[in-house]
């Protein structure tokens, strides 16, 4: 067999490691919210102020904040494709395992659950306990208040 040129063979490796890229561009847009060390900007509405206005709104706001740990797996934008977990937009009143674009566990699909406040609360407290065989292996919310807030937030996404 024809002898290959070893030097030629090395070239891709060398080019790969030796060559730089194009000159690095500066930012197109730079929004400086705050300098490090400067005091954080106060949130627009504090809990105490808002609670006088609307208890439900506070709960939903708390739920939105608490939902952050869920957001790694579940998107909530209407029409967005499911990611590691199903899209939770309009989950209220939906049958468990109803989305076409998510591969639910057989356990959840055959659970006959229709999502209500009580069902979501029980499921979030202990997913595998409520539906043995679910693929939701993380994200149990043990804190009762936070769970309630998350459920309220999900409900708000289903009714708005």
């Amino acid at each position, binding site marked *: 067999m024809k002898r290959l040129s070893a030097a030629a063979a090395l070239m891709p*490796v060398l080019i790969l*490691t030796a060559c*730089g*890229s194009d000159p*690095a561009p500066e930012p197109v847009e730079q929004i400086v919210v705050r300098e490090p060390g400067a005091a954080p900007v106060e949130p627009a509405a504090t809990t105490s102020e808002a609670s006088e206005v609307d208890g439900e709104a506070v709960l939903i706001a708390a739920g939105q904040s608490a939902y952050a740990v869920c957001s790694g797996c579940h998107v909530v934008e209407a029409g967005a494709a499911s990611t590691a977990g199903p899209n939770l937009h309009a989950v209220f009143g939906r049958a468990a395992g109803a989305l076409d674009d998510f591969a639910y566990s057989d356990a959840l699909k055959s659970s006959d659950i229709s999502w209500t406040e009580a069902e979501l609360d029980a499921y979030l407290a202990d997913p595998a306990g409520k539906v043995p065989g679910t693929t939701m292996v993380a994200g149990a919310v043990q804190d009762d208040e936070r769970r309630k807030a998350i459920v309220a937030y999900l409900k708000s996404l289903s009714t708005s």
Partner: protein
Amino acid sequence: MSDAETMTDTPKKKGKWTRRAFIGAGVVAGGALVVGVAVRPGNPTDRLSPMLTNGKDEQLLNAWVKVGADNIVTAIIPHVEMGQGVFTALAQMLADEMDADWSKVRILESPAIDQYVSDSIGREFIAPNLEVPEILEPTVAGGFLELVQAMGLQITGGSFSVRGTGQRAMRTAGAAAREMLVAAAASEWDVPASEITTADSMISHAKSGKSETFAKFAAAAEEQSLPAKPKLKSPDNYKLMGKPIARTDIPEKVDGSALFGIDAKVPGMKYAAVKAAPVVGATVESMDATAAKSMPGVLQILNMGDFVAVVADGYWQAQQALNSVKTTYSKTEGDKLDQASLFKRYDKHLNEAGADGGDTETEEGDVGEAFANAATKVEAEYKVPFLAHATMEPMNCTAWVRDGKCDVWSGHQSPLGARKAAAEAAGLDFDDVTYHNTYLGGGFGRRSENDNIEMAVRIAKAAGYPVKMIWSREEDTMQDHYRPSATSRFQGGLDKNGKAVSWSNIHTHLFDPADAPTVPYYNIANHKIRKIDVPTHLRFGPWRSVDHSQHGFFIESFVDEMAEAAGKDGYEFRRELLAGSKRHLAILDKVAKMSGWDKPLPEGHGRGIAFVPSFGSIIAQVAEVDMTGKKPKVDKVYVAADAGFVVNPDGFTAQMESAIVYGLTATLYGEISLKDGAVQQSNFHDYQMLRINEMPEIEVAIINGDHKRLGGGGEPSLPPLAPAVTNAIFAATGKRVRELPLSKNSFA
């Protein structure tokens, strides 16, 4: 942590160069100056000493080793540790030749400076068989060093560290240091050097009963000239090489103290999350950061043109805020591409190439005529998808650009390359950048790219304070430099006795190494191998075993199909093709024997064999599969390996196991696919990894076939795995797998 350099001060166990050494211009080692021509032409110890020694009680004997007053021998390793055990294996090679006491050997990773370019790797690759007289060695070695320095090549990859740097530099350096110490003692004691012996970091003269430590003569060694070609040990004198010595980096990897790039700590450091345009090559058209501006902890929101970034007090805050930033991107040609249309594009180019088009890689005889006259003709087409590296540590980099200087912290396979990339991104001179390397949380080729370095430096430059940029797993999966997806077509001819007479192949892409599609070890009179390049917008990168990862599957599947057409057993058919190649046959026979190739398996089970020499090593594997369940299950993999001489058998075995799991993950599940030009997979739920419940039993046999020319360990066990498994599936079910991963195939 109190100052900016703590990262380099802290890991004393691993022995990074110290801050004092780096910035202490006034501190110079106590006169240590040894001209190490063979080891480093134009000896650099006077320049290196301030960086590598503490300046008082340590002597730098040459670029690769220093001896302390406490008789500690420190091996200076010009490669990075990403789990392959290179620190230990290279130190073993140096310490063995030096006759150092292993319990008193320490390890220091070399700094990212051009004295530590991988010239031995360059020479091993370009002119592996070049032997020159001693008088010319400095000139030749110097030539290679200059060439490789000009290229800025400081790379840990290509399974090259032990066979290149270890075999050519570390052993030579150890032997040279030993000879210098002996010469110093001979001079001091006024006895012939030939009467002096060394062992366990001691120098002894039996006749006079004198015995001293290496340390005692370390300073005097500077008076000795270093031989261009010190005498190396023969294998029967090895004390450390060939022994399964415990890896030095493991203790700090079980107590949480090992530092990876993501663990960098710089005072005042803030955190950045990033999102690049989903279609590579597109730019950010608009950015709406209204929500992010009022989110907790947010400091800056940046539109960098090709990506957006949020800088915040904490990484999680940055990522949460980034998730709320709405972006649109420019339209590109890449938008139109999805996986099915890409494979169609491959087909179109392959069809256009026809029987003679494309670039010929190798050719011998006349395949056209041989195939036309063949008694039996075999044709097949195979396909593989893009693959992501999925290192456990997502891409990250910490950078600080200020006052015309730049410091960068990361774990990178080419520290010198990272430093150059940082300098360009910061708009600074190379000399104004200090690059601090760490352990790598997986490399596999991914960490030879500089995109993360450039991004972090650009963000830090805009911010003005130190920033640690961390990619989400989603970003890591969707913005990789992928193993190319490829299609490969074969035509093979057999004569009336079932002997292979022609082998023709055309495939898409050639990345590296050039020998991957070729089969010089198989004795087939007529062969022709061609490639065509099919442009896509995706970035390709070296992925563990690089092109061998797909060609191993293509070639060894087709060999099996030819064996089947010839009515022969896959093992016997390969034996015929390898006739006359003693080392190759020894490995093939070994794997057949250890796997009990002739013994029957239960119904629904099958055995498959594959043979792929790569990266200088000869590997054969037999896989046993169980097809009785819902999906294929690999029960056992047997490996026979000839890597010349294995320096650390346990470390080498671990590499065999590791590459098998990497290959099996790809075989079972690995698929990165495109939709509208963007990668569809994002995290471990849709880019699945092999887990412990699917782990096959692995048995490794090592044959040391050539102690002079060594082979690599990190990659060569990967290419044979996929075809061993798919050939086993054929044996069990009669179904031939021609497209990976297996999850795309139905075995019902």
